[in-house]
């Protein structure tokens, strides 16, 4: 299973070759070519983001990775096997775009049900359920029916069920959709923590900031085809431009420095104060307000316990 991937030898978690998906109408006539011959790999311990506007083929690609849709052409292998095989699915965690959960179950029952499908031993299942409930901040609502939950809370249950088997490969379809900023941060922290433990993540999103902040590599899709692919650094770095960050200078020194720069580059340099991104600023405000639960202080403990528990 050792295959060349992004310049390194690493075990491949996902290997898609010439993947095509054509949706047909009732009479089997081709209707839409949702995915049109894409090739990409996901290596061990990396987060790969599938980026693209609505209808670009992200979700269809993910459904083929999971065996929910069958490729019209090409092949896909997950953990070296066809996703149709039960053994391949043993190591996959999946959070769909919309968490369609059984509304009559409580979060604890939901996790217990999915844990049973993974054949987890009762003791392991019980402890993992408590860790996951703590991690997603739902311990207080663990015995309420999911049908009573807000969309964000359902999303948290969805995330918890995706992690119940401590998967090697996590497939997240729009994981931050419907979540408030602290919860988005939690999801991203969870992803980064998972990757530090050698797990792989396929992330589909059209929220560019989310993808940029966590992904190692990007696959950009449009009209079912890959338009750009590579590491975030490779894709985003403008090698012919340079920015320098330094302490603010007194006006006289600044004027002299700018003049020197003008003489060397032949054009007017842009000067501005760096700013925090809005998400970081918002979280700082909440943290200052002292609401540790919202900002995820408890969440970080939860991640730690979950990760300890699954090691």
């Amino acid at each position, binding site marked *: 299973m050792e295959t060349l991937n992004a310049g390194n030898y690493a075990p491949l978690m996902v290997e898609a070759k010439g993947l095509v998906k054509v949706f047909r109408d009732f009479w089997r006539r081709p209707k839409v070519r949702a995915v049109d011959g894409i090739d990409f790999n996901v290596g061990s311990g990396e987060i790969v983001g599938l980026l693209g506007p609505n209808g670009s083929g992200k979700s269809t690609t993910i459904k083929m990775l999971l065996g929910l849709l069958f490729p019209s052409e090409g092949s896909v292998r997950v953990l070296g096997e066809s996703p149709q095989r*039960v053994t391949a699915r043993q190591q996959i965690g*999946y959070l769909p775009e919309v968490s*369609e*959960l059984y509304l009559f179950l409580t979060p604890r029952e939901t996790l217990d049900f999915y844990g049973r499908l993974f054949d987890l031993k009762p003791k392991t299942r019980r402890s993992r359920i408590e860790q996951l409930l703590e991690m997603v901040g739902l311990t207080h609502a663990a015995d309420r029916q999911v049908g009573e939950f807000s969309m964000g809370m359902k999303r948290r249950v969805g995330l918890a069920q995706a992690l119940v088997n401590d998967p090697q490969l996590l497939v997240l379809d729009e994981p931050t959709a419907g979540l408030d900023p602290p919860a988005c941060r939690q999801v991203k922290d969870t992803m980064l923590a998972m990757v530090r433990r050698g797990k792989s993540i396929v992330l589909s999103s059209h929220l560019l900031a989310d993808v940029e902040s966590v992904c190692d590599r990007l696959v950009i899709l449009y009209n079912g085809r890959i338009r750009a692919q590579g590491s975030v650094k490779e894709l985003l770095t403008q090698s012919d431009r340079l920015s320098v960050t330094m302490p603010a200078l007194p006006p006289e020194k600044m004027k002299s420095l700018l003049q020197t720069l003008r003489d060397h580059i032949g054009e007017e340099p842009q000067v501005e104060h760096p700013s925090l991104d809005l998400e970081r600023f918002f979280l700082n405000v909440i943290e200052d307000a002292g609401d540790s639960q919202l900002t995820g202080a408890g969440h970080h403990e939860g991640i730690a316990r979950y990760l300890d528990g699954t090691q």
Partner: protein
Amino acid sequence: MIRRVFAVATLTLRGTIRSRALVGLAVLLLFLMIGLPLTVKGSGSPASDVHVLLYYTLGCAWVIIMVATLFISCAGISQDIEQERIRLVAVKPVRKSEIWLGKWFGMLTLNALLLVIVGLSIVGLLGWKSRSWDPETKTRLSQTVLVANRTVPPRPEDVSDELERMYQIELDRIKEQGRSTTAFQRKRIRGSIRHALLTAYAQVSPGSGKSWQIDIPQEAKGENPMALHINFSPLSGEIRSEHGSWSLSTERGTGVVFEDKIVAGMGNRIPLPDDLVRPGATLNIRFENAAGGTSVVFDPETAVELRVREHSFAWNLVCSLLVIFCQLALLSAFGLAAGTFFSYPVATFVATAIVFLSMTGHYFVVSEGSDVLSPVGVQPREQSVFHAVGETMVLGLERISGPALRLSSLAKLSNGLLVSLGSVFYAIVVVVGYSAVLTVISCIYLSRRELAA
């Protein structure tokens, strides 16, 4: 595998129990169990009350549970697919067969729970009613209705020669009319002629008589009381009337003349004297129709029969509920299969239509078969292609699913007749066989079906 099937079964059961549908169903059943015996009145006798309770109340409860089972099972897989909940299950290491079987076992558990409730309600209502019965009534009911009696029919009449002769005449007549017959129609003709012959033989005119021979079973024991059941009708005059005389004897010559009144138009139960009842003996029954009276007719199959107490009523109730459980299990499998192939509304429509046709197609076909026996001179209808195709479809459906869906034990239970272990075993075999076929077909289709759009 068992753990995953169990997980899905628990989920199915939990989902149904927590849904409002089950609450509605439970209220409806409760209302029916209590309300129907109060509103539907029999002849007013305790036996009639018990019959109403066992046949109509239990029958209605069975129909309600049957319809609910069909609707809930149709939703089992189809709604999981439509509402996309199946996606989270299908990406787990679970086989499609495990999902399907889990859903089925969940439905079976639900059915078992409902039948236990119905069974306990029946027992409770009988207990409540029995408070007003005197000891004599209790004894009589325990021998007639609240019991599991095995029936021993008389030796069949030999009508084969006459049957063949009349059958050939009828076929020749149809041929002369330029009509053709299907194999099924020929079978129906033969059956009708046989029935007509037996009915003719069973007709006794004034001044003549008729005899029956019943072989008393070898295993009949002294502690199990036996009784003769006689049922016949007058051809004219007052329905409930006495006709002629009856006598009993064995091959050893011992005999008795009935002193009890044997009345036409109702079931007559004659307890047999102990000295006549010897295992392995042949019981001769003779009826002499009084001269100057009216002719009477005996049903060829049920006019005279021996009833031997085989088991208690509790046994019969349990066996009867087991047969109903088997039917419900089959309906669950059928509903789940329909839900695997179609969306919920379509699955419900298709399943209901097929079940209805399977259960009633027999009657359509019977009336169709009898059309061939139209009198000479009457212009027969031409059979169109549409007609032929329709008949073939209904016949096929009736043959495939009819035997499974027409398993019925309520008539026997409410008449104190034995619901045998054999019939329970047959029901189990039918359910296992048919369900296995439905499971395999559904699982193959489900594993080839894309579970996302």
